[in-house]
C-alpha cells in the first residue's frame, strides 16, 4: 500500500528495554509502543494508526524515559539498549489526563446522540483514563455540520485534529480533499475554504470515516426512510445486498472479522420486513456479461483501450475530477447496484405484475459513495429513481440491533428468486481483483470457446496496491492490471497516460482491499481486518456450485426473455450510462 516500508525487523540487532520493570528484547529502532506491546503493557494512543506513518501529535501516549528531560511519545520514540521506561508514573498519568481533558473541553457533549457512541476512541480514552471531571470550561468549536452530499456528514466541531483522515485522503487515496488549516487552537482539518464536500474534489469514498477516531465524519443515516417504507403496506420493499456485505455484516453484530454470514443476513432482512431479499451478486454476474462483451467488442473493433471498470462510484467521481480525458476508457456499464435497480422496476415488475411506482429498492452497500451514485441524475432509466435508498452495512447493523434480532441464532435462509441467484464469480466482486478475475473467467470461454479448467486467477488477488498480469486466452495475450485505493489508481493511470505498456483491461476499486474495505463497512477497518474479510470472500466463491457468470441460469433467462443479447438495445437503455467531467481543484 502507500505506507513507507521499514527494513525487516529480523535484520536489526536486539536491544534490552525495561518497561515498568519488565525487561523485553526488541529489534533496535523499534518504538517504545512496540516494546510495550511485547511487555504486555498497554499504552493509550489516539493519533496513532497501525496502517499509517507515525504522527506523534496527540501526545496521549507520552511516557517517562530515564535521562530524558521531557516525556516522549511512545508511538514515535525509538528504543535503545538499556532504555528504562515508565508508562504509568504520576507525571505521565497527570499529563495524559490533562491532555484528554483539554480535548474533551473542546468537544460537543452529545455522545448519546452521536453516530459513534460506543465506538468512539475519545470516549474510550476518557473511560480508560478514569476521567470523571473536565477541569477546563467547555469551549466548543462553532462549526455548522456539512450535509451537502448524500453520502457523508462532516461535523468539524468533533474534529480532534489527529490528522488520520489527512493521511488517508492524501497519502493513501491521493485525493487531497482534507488538510489542516489555520493555526493554533483554531487549527482544524477542513476542505479548502471550509467548503461543503459537494463543492470540492472529494470522491465520497468514506475512507476518512475509517480513519476518524470520533464522529467528525460519518455516513448519512438513511434508516428512517427504510423503517417508514417497511411499515407502509402500499410499498413493495425490495432489498439487494452487495457481495462484500456477507463477509462483514457479522462484525456489526459481535462476530469476528472474516465470518461469512450470507444465510443469516438474508434471514435478518426477512425479519426486518423486506418483501423480497435479492442479491446484488445477480447483477454482478450481469455486469460481467455486459462488460465482458464490451471488452471483446473494443478488442476486436479497435475501441478505446484500456477498458477501465466502472462499478466503484468513488473511483468514478475521482476520474471525473482528475482524469476526465480518460473518461472514454471507462466502461459504459452501470454498477451492479444500479443495474439491479433498473431491472427491479422493469423486468422484475413486469414479470410479477407489480406497479413499479410501488416498488422501493433498498441496497445494502459497503460503500458511502453508493448513496451518491444512486442519486446521480442519470440513474433513472427505469422511469423512476432506479435505486431509492442505499444503506451502509453499519446502518443495517443498527437496524438489526434496533429490531432486537438475535443475529447469531438465526437459521440460514436462501435469497429470493430470480434476482437472488448468483455465482462465485459475482461473490468475488467484493475483493480487489475480483471483478477482473470474474471477467477473465467469462472472457476466456467467450473468446476461446473452450472450457476454462483452472478458474482461480490468483495473480490478481491480494493486498498489493497494483497488480499486473498477462493472461493468455489461447493465443490472445491480454495485459491486465488491478489497482485498489485511489492513490494506487492514480499511479496506474499515470502509467497509462505515459503509454508505458499496452494495457487492455484494468480494474480499479476506490477502497483499499476492494469493497470489503469500503467506507461504509464496520468500524474498525484496518489492513489486518481487510485481509480476513478477503479470505471470507474467496471461501464464499469456493463453496458455490456455479462459479462463472455466464453459467448463471437466471442471467441466461434474463437475456432470453427480456434483454435479448449483451450490448443490445434494451441493455443500452437500462444497463449503460455516461459520465460527467468535474472541476479538477
Amino acid at each position, binding site marked *: 500500500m502507500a505506507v513507507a516500508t521499514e527494513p525487516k525487523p529480523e535484520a536489526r540487532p536486539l536491544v534490552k528495554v525495561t518497561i515498568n520493570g519488565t525487561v523485553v528484547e526488541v529489534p533496535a529502532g523499534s518504538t517504545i509502543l512496540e516494546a510495550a506491546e511485547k511487555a504486555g503493557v498497554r499504552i493509550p494512543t489516539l493519533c496513532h494508526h497501525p496502517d499509517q506513518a507515525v504522527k506523534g501529535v496527540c501526545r*496521549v501516549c507520552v511516557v517517562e524515559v530515564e535521562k530524558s528531560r*521531557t*516525556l516522549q511519545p511512545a508511538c514515535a520514540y525509538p528504543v535503545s539498549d538499556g532504555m528504562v521506561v515508565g508508562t504509568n508514573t504520576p*507525571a505521565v498519568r497527570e499529563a495524559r489526563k490533562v491532555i484528554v481533558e*483539554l480535548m474533551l473541553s473542546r468537544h460537543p457533549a452529545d455522545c448519546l446522540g452521536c453516530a459513534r457512541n460506543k465506538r468512539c476512541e475519545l470516549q474510550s480514552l476518557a473511560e480508560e483514563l478514569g476521567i470523571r471531571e473536565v*477541569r*477546563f470550561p467547555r469551549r466548543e468549536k462553532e462549526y455548522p455540520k456539512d450535509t451537502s452530499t448524500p453520502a457523508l456528514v462532516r461535523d468539524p466541531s468533533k474534529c480532534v*485534529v489527529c490528522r488520520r483522515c489527512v493521511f488517508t485522503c492524501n497519502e493513501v487515496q491521493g485525493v487531497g480533499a482534507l488538510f489542516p488549516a489555520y*493555526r493554533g487552537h483554531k*487549527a482544524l482539518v477542513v476542505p479548502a475554504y471550509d467548503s461543503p464536500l459537494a463543492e470540492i474534489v472529494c470522491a465520497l469514498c468514506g475512507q476518512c470515516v475509517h480513519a476518524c477516531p470520533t464522529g467528525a465524519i460519518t455516513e448519512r443515516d438513511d434508516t428512517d426512510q427504510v423503517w417508514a417504507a417497511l411499515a407502509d403496506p402500499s410499498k413493495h420493499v425490495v432489498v439487494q445486498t452487495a457481495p462484500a456485505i456477507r463477509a462483514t455484516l457479522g462484525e456489526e453484530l459481535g462476530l469476528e472479522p472474516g465470518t461469512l454470514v450470507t444465510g443469516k443476513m438474508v434471514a435478518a432482512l426477512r425479519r426486518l420486513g423486506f418483501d423480497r431479499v435479492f442479491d446484488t451478486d445477480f447483477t454482478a454476474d450481469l455486469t460481467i456479461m455486459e462488460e465482458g462483451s464490451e471488452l471483446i467488442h473494443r478488442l476486436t473493433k479497435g475501441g478505446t483501450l484500456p477498458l477501465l471498470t466502472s462499478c466503484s462510484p468513488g473511483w468514478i467521481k475521482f476520474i471525473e475530477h482528475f482524469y476526465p480525458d480518460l473518461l472514454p476508457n471507462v466502461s459504459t456499464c452501470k454498477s451492479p447496484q444500479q443495474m439491479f435497480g433498473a431491472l427491479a422496476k422493469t423486468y422484475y415488475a413486469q414479470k410479477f405484475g407489480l406497479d413499479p411506482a410501488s416498488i422501493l429498492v433498498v441496497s445494502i452497500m459497503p460503500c458511502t459513495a453508493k448513496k451518491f451514485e444512486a442519486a446521480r441524475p442519470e440513474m433513472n432509466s427505469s422511469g423512476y429513481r432506479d435505486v431509492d435508498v442505499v444503506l451502509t452495512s453499519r446502518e443495517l447493523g443498527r437496524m438489526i440491533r434496533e429490531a432486537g434480532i438475535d443475529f447469531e441464532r438465526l437459521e440460514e435462509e436462501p435469497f429470493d428468486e430470480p434476482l437472488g441467484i448468483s455465482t462465485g464469480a459475482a461473490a468475488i466482486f467484493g475483493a480487489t481483483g475480483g471483478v477482473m478475475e470474474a471477467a477473465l473467467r467469462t472472457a476466456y470461454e467467450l473468446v476461446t470457446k473452450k472450457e476454462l479448467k483452472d478458474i482461480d486467477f490468483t495473480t490478481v488477488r491480494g493486498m498489493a496496491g497494483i497488480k499486473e498480469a498477462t493472461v493468455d486466452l489461447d493465443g490472445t495475450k491480454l495485459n491486465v492490471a488491478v489497482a485498489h485505493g485511489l492513490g494506487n489508481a492514480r499511479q496506474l493511470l499515470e502509467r497509462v497516460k505515459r503509454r508505458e505498456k499496452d494495457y487492455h483491461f484494468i480494474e480499479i476499486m476506490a477502497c483499499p482491499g476492494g469493497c470489503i474495505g469500503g467506507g461504509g463497512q464496520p468500524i474498525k477497518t484496518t489492513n489486518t481486518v481487510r485481509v480476513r474479510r478477503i479470505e471470507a470472500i474467496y471461501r464464499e466463491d469456493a463453496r458455490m456450485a456455479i462459479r462463472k457468470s455466464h453459467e448463471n441460469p437466471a442471467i441466461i433467462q434474463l437475456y432470453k426473455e427480456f434483454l435479448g443479447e449483451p450490448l443490445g438495445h434494451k441493455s443500452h437503455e437500462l444497463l449503460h450510462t455516461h459520465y460527467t467531467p468535474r472541476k479538477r481543484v
Partner: protein
Amino acid sequence: MHFYRAHVLVCAGTNCSLRGSRAVRERLAGELARRGLDGEIKVVETGCFGLCEQGPTVVVYPEGVLYCRVTPDDVPELVEEHLLKGRRLERLLYRETAAKAVQTVPQMDFFQGQVRVVLRRCGVIDPDSVEEYIAHGGYQALGKALTQMKPAEVVEEIKASGLRGRGGAGFPTGLKWEFASKAKGDVKYIVCNADEGEPGTFKDRLILEGDPHAILEGMAIAGYAVGARKGYVYIRGEYGLSIQRLERAILQARELGLLGEDIFGSGFGFDVEVRVGAGAYVCGEETALFESLEGGRGEPRLKPPYPTEVGLFGKPTVINNVETLANVPPIIQNGPKWFRQFGTERCPGTKVFTLTGDIVNEGLIEVPMGITLREVIFGIGGGIPGGRGFKMAQTGGTSGGCLPVQLLDVPMDYDELAKVGAALGSGALLVMDDTHCIVDIARVFARFFEHESCGKCVPCREGTMRIHEIVCRIATGEATPKDLDNLEALARTMALACLCPLGQAAPVPVMTTLKYFRDEYEAHIYEKRCPTGTCRTLAGRPALTAAGKGV
C-alpha cells in the same frame, strides 16, 4: 586611491532610520557638496551602532566623536563647526546619565564595557560595500580555511573554541558540525536561521543589516567543514531591509567569486539562497523552519531524527543562528584560544544583548558571557529611567523566565541562568520597573503563545489558549483558586509533553512570575485588587483599582 580627511558615519540601522537618519544623511551629502567638501569628507551609512534610544546617531572620524539625536536642521551647524572649524558641537554630544559630556566613542562607558566581536563592523562600515568588508578583514577566514585547513580541522577549531548556538538553545556548535560532517550522504545543507521572532530580540536584524557578508562567510566556512555545497538563509518576511542587504551581498560575493564554484581555486563551491518567511514565530524552531522552507505549514517535526541526520529536504543539515555564524570567521581567523579569552569556561565568547523596556540605554550591546544582570542593567544599560524601582527582568525573550531583584547578580550565561529557572535564550532583556502589573504582563506573554502556537500538538494548541484564558480571568478579577491549580497542572503537562520547545517553554514566563510575585497574583484572585492599578476588565473599564474597589 582616494583619501578622505574625515569620515562621517550615519547609523542607518532600522531603529535610527525610523527616527529619520536617512534625511540626515541626505542633508549632510547636500551640505558638503554645497560647500565643496565632498571630495575630502566621506559620508557613510552604516549598520546599527547600538544606541537605539539616542538615534539618529552620527560619528565623525578620525576623532570618533559621537553625536546623538541629530536632525537634518542640525546638519549645517555640524558641518560648519566640526568639519570646517574643528570644534565639537556641544549640544549634540552624547551625554551619560552622570551628565558628563563624553566626546569620543572609545571613551564612552557604553562602549567600554563591550567587546564587539560580532558587532565589530556594525556602525563602522557601509554594509552595501563588499570592498569595505574585505578591507576590514572580510573573507580572510574563508580564504584561510579553504587554502590552509582541512574540513575536519575547521570542525576541530570550532569545537575547541567552545562556541555555543546563539539562537537560544546553546548547543555546542562544533559538535553539531561534527555530527553533520560524519552523516552519510553527498547532499548536505547549511541553513542560517534568521527567523528572529523572539520578542525583544532584534540583534539578527541589525547584524544582517550592518554586516551581511559576515553571515555568508560563516556559512561558506560551515559548508566547507561539513561537506555542504548549498546554503539557505531563512529570513522573516517583516525584515525588508535585511533581505535587501543580504541579497545584494550575495550578488556581490558571487561577482567576486567568493560564492559559487571553485572559491579561491580550492575546488570547493558554495552558494547561498535567501528564502523569506511569512509571519510565524514557530518557524524559528529548526524543524518547523525546514517544513516552511519546503513549502509547507511551519509545524515542527518529531526528534529524533535530528537535523544533522535528517534535516532540510531530508538531508543532513547544519542550522545555525545569525549570531552564531557571525562568530565563525573571527574564530577561524584568530583561533580558539583568542575566542576563549572572553566569557566563561563553559560559555566562552561574547553575547549580543538587546536591551528593551524600562532601561535608559535601549538598544544593542555585545559583552562577554558571564557578565551579571546587574552590570548589564545598571552599568552599561544606564539603569532605570526616571529613577523608578526595578521590578523584574525577563531574559531570553517572551519564552524566558522572569528574574526578581534578588537574582540580579546571576551571571548571564546558558548554564547559570538555567540553574535559576531562567534562560539566556536569544539574549533579549526586558526590564520592568515597579509601575507595571505582573499579572498584566503575564497576560501579554500568554497571549503571544496563544497566537503563535502552530496547533499541531494537543497540549500546546489547547494549553496556550487555556493559559491565556486563565491569566485574563486573574487580571479581570474573575479567577478562583482552582484557576491557579489548573494553571500549574497545565504548566507541568506542557513542559513535559509538548512536541517542541515552543510549547515546552510557553508556561515558563507565566510560572516564573507566579513564583516570584505570587502575592500580586493572590491580590487579584482573593482581593480582586490590582496593586499597581493597571488591570482592567475586558470591557475596558478600570475594574481593579489599587484600592480594590471598582466596577
